[in-house]
């Protein structure tokens, strides 16, 4: 039911505005913090209005680096995070698309066994098997590189299930029409199946990019080389500055920077993302 009375409109707007304030306030504080110098940030009360140090802090954090991670500029850490998030998102999507394609469209021996094996991995996320996974990655010599950062996180059952579901809604006639038109299995995959699931791929990409960007535990475990630090673990390291007090103004700046790529991905893919989650027409 849609309420038309002014009181109801007034009420719902209040609730919405309050919601926005609750979400936006910490971000505002981060922004304000990033625009003051170190001294102001140690005095109480904390400032509520922006200062004039924003671009100085920006340069200091982005190029020169912060606190304990001093040798590493935020720029490099963000680059590492970006590569990691992209590799995880693209890798997961590629592997899940292919495995879902195999499970839905091919009749091979032990098909259901493979299906259930993939299913079981749902119950074993990285956090549960972190030690053996670390052992394996270490033995493969993948510590301190992008492969070690991403490969263990790529294998994923959720995405496989999602694509299986998507493929099951594609009418059989489409496959048959393509077969009659002369398309082999890979042709069908590339020319028909991929474009038809385009919006689902986009939606999943957004989710996985953010998932990859926000990884903390796994990068912490397998990167010892500062040049491989990612931004999320980098922020944590900055807080653990040995003797001196944390450089709050730079940490706030780093946090602000760390938020930008996921936001850009969401904004850039918003249209496809929403379509992917709501559209049913095939």
């Amino acid at each position, binding site marked *: 039911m849609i309420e038309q009375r002014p009181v109801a409109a007034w009420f719902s707007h209040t609730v919405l505005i309050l919601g926005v304030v609750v979400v936006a306030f910490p971000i505002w504080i981060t922004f304000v913090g990033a625009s003051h110098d170190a001294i102001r940030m140690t005095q109480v009360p904390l400032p509520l209005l922006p200062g004039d140090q924003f671009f100085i802090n920006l340069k200091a954090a982005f190029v020169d680096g912060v606190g304990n991670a001093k040798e590493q500029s935020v720029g490099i850490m963000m680059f590492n995070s970006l590569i990691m998030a992209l590799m995880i998102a693209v890798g997961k999507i590629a592997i899940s698309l292919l495995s879902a394609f195999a499970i839905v469209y091919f009749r091979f021996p032990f098909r259901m066994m493979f299906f259930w094996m993939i299913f079981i991995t749902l119950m074993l996320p990285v956090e549960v098997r972190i030690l053996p996974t670390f052992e394996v990655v270490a033995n493969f010599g993948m510590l301190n590189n992008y492969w070690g950062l991403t490969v263990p996180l790529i294998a994923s059952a959720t995405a496989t299930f999602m694509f299986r579901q998507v493929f099951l809604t594609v009418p059989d006639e489409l496959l048959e029409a393509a*077969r009659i038109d002369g398309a082999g299995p890979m042709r069908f995959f590339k020319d*028909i199946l991929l474009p038809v699931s*385009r919006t689902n791929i986009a939606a999943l990409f957004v989710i996985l990019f953010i998932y990859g960007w926000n990884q903390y535990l796994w990068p912490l475990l397998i990167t010892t080389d500062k040049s491989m630090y990612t931004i999320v673990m980098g922020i944590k390291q900055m807080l653990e500055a040995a003797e001196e007090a944390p450089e709050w103004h730079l940490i706030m700046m780093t946090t602000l920077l760390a938020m930008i790529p996921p936001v850009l991905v969401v904004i850039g893919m918003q249209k496809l993302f929403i379509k992917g989650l709501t559209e049913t*027409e095939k």
Partner: protein
Amino acid sequence: MAKVLIEDIIKSYGETEVLHGINTDIADGEFIVIVGPSGCGKSTLLRMIAGLEDISSGTISIDGKVVNTLEPKDRDIAMVFQNYALYPHMTVFKNMAYGLKLRKFSKKEIKVRVDRVAKLLQLEELLDRKPRQLSGGQRQRVAMGRCIVREPKVFLFDEPLSNLDAKLRVQMRLELRKLHKRLKVTSIYVTHDQVEAMTLGDRLVVINDGYTEQIGPPLELYEKPASIFVAGFLGSPAMNFLSAQISADGNSVQLSETVQVSVDSVNRQIIAEKKVTFGIRPEHFSLSDKGKTGLPLTVDHAEFHGASTIIYGRLQGNDELITVRLPHVHHINPKTVLMLTALPEHIHLFDPKTGKRI
């Protein structure tokens, strides 16, 4: 253009056999309609010809070549699906061009062919649209266009008109007929709609429960149905069937103790006093002249269809339901008794045990 030969085709899904040995011989350029009730195996047969379904036993050959194990793309056929199966993300042009592209036609040749077919089907304006921006009838034509551009040896249609509204269906039926006259490509058309079958087909293959009941031109099937099934399936309203017995002298059938109808025994193997099923179409009755005898029918109700009147009633004496179709408008009140004459040359007799024509 090609002949299609279907020999002893059997199809089983696991233990259950759904087609029990179908034989048909389709001539070059012929329009064949496979017709039968829902679930009788028509689509299965068509899909076997297309190569989308394995053949359990028997052979299918196209243009003299056995195609049993060939992939669909190597059979040189094209198929129109019931829900069109257009590629949703491609424009009309790309939909039609896809098969040609995969067959490595040059860009120029593809353009020439698609444009020619688009013109033939009046799709020129729509070439840049996506399927979801088209009406049902337009989609239908695109699906047809996709087949025609390929210039295959055989067209296969699986109930292509069943998703259209009644008026459009009639119009598309005519267009399909005209198109076939022009292109003269061997066509196999599956439908469960007997009107579509009668109007489109050069010949019909009537299938029931996985068996062929009869094969022949529409009129022949209508006038000389080989079995009770075919007789009842074709024609609307359906044929009347009454249980009857041949009289002792073999010149008439006894419908009840009091009612009998004389039949000619030419071309019939009449056995005296045998039990038979007596069949007559609703339009093959006429009102008896005043004072003459006939079949007495107590009218239940009458429907006016403009050009004709359909009367439902019960035969006096054995109470069986009868449908009668009389030309023109007749105002008949319920409970009146009509005297009807069954036109002797249109009387069908069937063996009640085998269902076959006598």
